[in-house]
């Protein structure tokens, strides 16, 4: 397949030494194998996710994403924008939609952007990395690179909220999207078909501000994965990953549970299945080690 090129919006959490820097490492590894070129948007800024609304009004928030989109048009005008973070993808895509539907807001946004010499056309698609994998690469091609099938592993695909609603992935349902399960099967592992908490919310940013209330949600998400016999959880979102991985000890202390379930990214799974080393797959970024994947990567 010919090289595919995209304008890339990495987002704050993927930066070096930030909470999902490990996601970025495995994405880079995966993309290299699949001949996907990611061209970082020069000087991108934070999109304010879904929690910017206290300090920022509608227009300032739209302007944040609009700046990124305008910079992308300027630097790689012929390329779709791709994000790996669900919150970044959603915020940017919502901006695109809102400015498309409301020409008045678009005019105001452009007035603001002009302060920094920028202008937005708003004509390129905003896509999540999993859309690129599914739609532009395809399951068959994804599968053809597998060198070490992840046989014997049972994995719960935790889709979460924001990669699923309100936009979701084309052709998938809100209540039971199948694409993560299909990816799990593509790399030779078994998917938990009846994972009840697949699209449940983990609390998102409120895991910081309302830790106890959110941890009650997270507990159910992990418990359900165990109930379905999962060896690990896989997710497409850095916030989901962080929330379901790092609080397991606190949940154990509070509820007397014995959780120790690794939570990895789809890009981690693909990298390991593609025969990459533990380091290339960023397994060293797991707080709860994914021993089974380490063993496969070490073979």
């Amino acid at each position, binding site marked *: 397949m010919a090289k595919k090129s995209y304008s890339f919006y990495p987002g*704050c*959490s993927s*930066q*070096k*030494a*930030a*909470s*999902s*820097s*490990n996601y970025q490492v495995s994405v880079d590894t995966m993309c290299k194998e699949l001949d996907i070129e990611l061209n970082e948007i020069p*000087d*991108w*800024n*934070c999109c*304010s*996710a*879904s*929690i*910017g*609304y*206290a*300090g*920022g*009004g*509608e*227009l*300032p928030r*739209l*302007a*944040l994403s609009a*700046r990124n989109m305008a910079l992308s048009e300027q630097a790689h005008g012929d390329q779709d924008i791709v994000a790996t973070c669900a919150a970044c993808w959603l915020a940017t895509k919502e901006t695109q939609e809102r400015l498309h539907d409301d020409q008045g807001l678009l005019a*105001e*946004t452009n*007035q*603001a952007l*002009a*302060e*920094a*010499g*920028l202008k937005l056309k708003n004509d390129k698609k905003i896509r999540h990395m999993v859309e690129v994998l599914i739609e532009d690469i395809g399951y068959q091609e994804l599968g053809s690179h597998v060198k070490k099938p992840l046989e014997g592993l049972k994995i719960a695909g935790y889709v979460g*909220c*924001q990669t699923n*609603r*309100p936009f979701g992935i084309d052709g998938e349902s*809100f209540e039971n999207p199948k694409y993560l399960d299909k990816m799990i099967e593509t790399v030779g592992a078994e998917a938990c078909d009846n994972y009840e908490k697949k699209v449940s*919310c983990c*609390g*998102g*940013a*409120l895991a*910081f*501000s*309302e830790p106890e*209330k*959110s941890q009650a*949600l997270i507990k159910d998400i992990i418990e359900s994965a165990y109930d379905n016999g999962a060896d690990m959880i896989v997710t497409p979102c850095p916030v989901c990953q962080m929330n379901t991985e*790092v*609080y397991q000890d*606190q949940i154990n202390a509070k509820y007397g549970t014995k959780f120790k379930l690794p939570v990895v990214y789809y890009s981690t799974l693909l990298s390991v299945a593609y025969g990459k080393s533990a380091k290339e797959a960023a397994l060293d970024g797991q*707080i709860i080690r994914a021993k089974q994947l380490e063993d496969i990567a070490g073979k």
Partner: protein
Amino acid sequence: MSYNQDMIEKYRGNFLKEVTDNVEEGDWVKMCMQCGVCSGSCPLGPHWEHPPQEIFMMIRANKREEVLESTSMWMCTSCYNCIARCPRGLPITHIMHGLATYSQRLGLAPQNQPTQKFANLFWKNLVKKGRVNELKLGLSLYFMNGFGEGIKTSLKMKDIGLNMLKTKRMSPMEYFGGHGCKDIKGLHAILKKAEELENARIGKSGS
């Protein structure tokens, strides 16, 4: 006169109109048919003073202060369950965010509400350099309830912090600088202009 007083004068008992004119996506509120699906969708449902459907009813019933001073909107996790399910297609998530923004502008937002504080810290943090500094955000979050509380929370979060450090998913160097936009001046100019334009539209002067 305060912005809040201005608005009270201007809308004199027509809170639905006030919301329609001033709240993000507020013109949708009149479309709600009170089916209650949204209220059953919020992950933190039991913790909402008034779930979304009730909020929409209260807006029509002119319960201005009760709505705007409520902690409810600050319980929204932005899960988009409601938007996916609402039979009338209301952008409920955005209306909740919009009501929160508006209550804050009016000076009516509940003080000491953790998410209200966190959301403000988040905005300040990102505006400063154009990108979020997770370490400083984390620290200011833990210390937002004062120093004593901060030490307690930090101790509770210590193990998580150590784990993040060990896996290189956090760096103490972030405290001294860290990531940011190069054209921060340009970004600030954009945000300033956007704020001015929005304030002019909603009749708010200064900030």
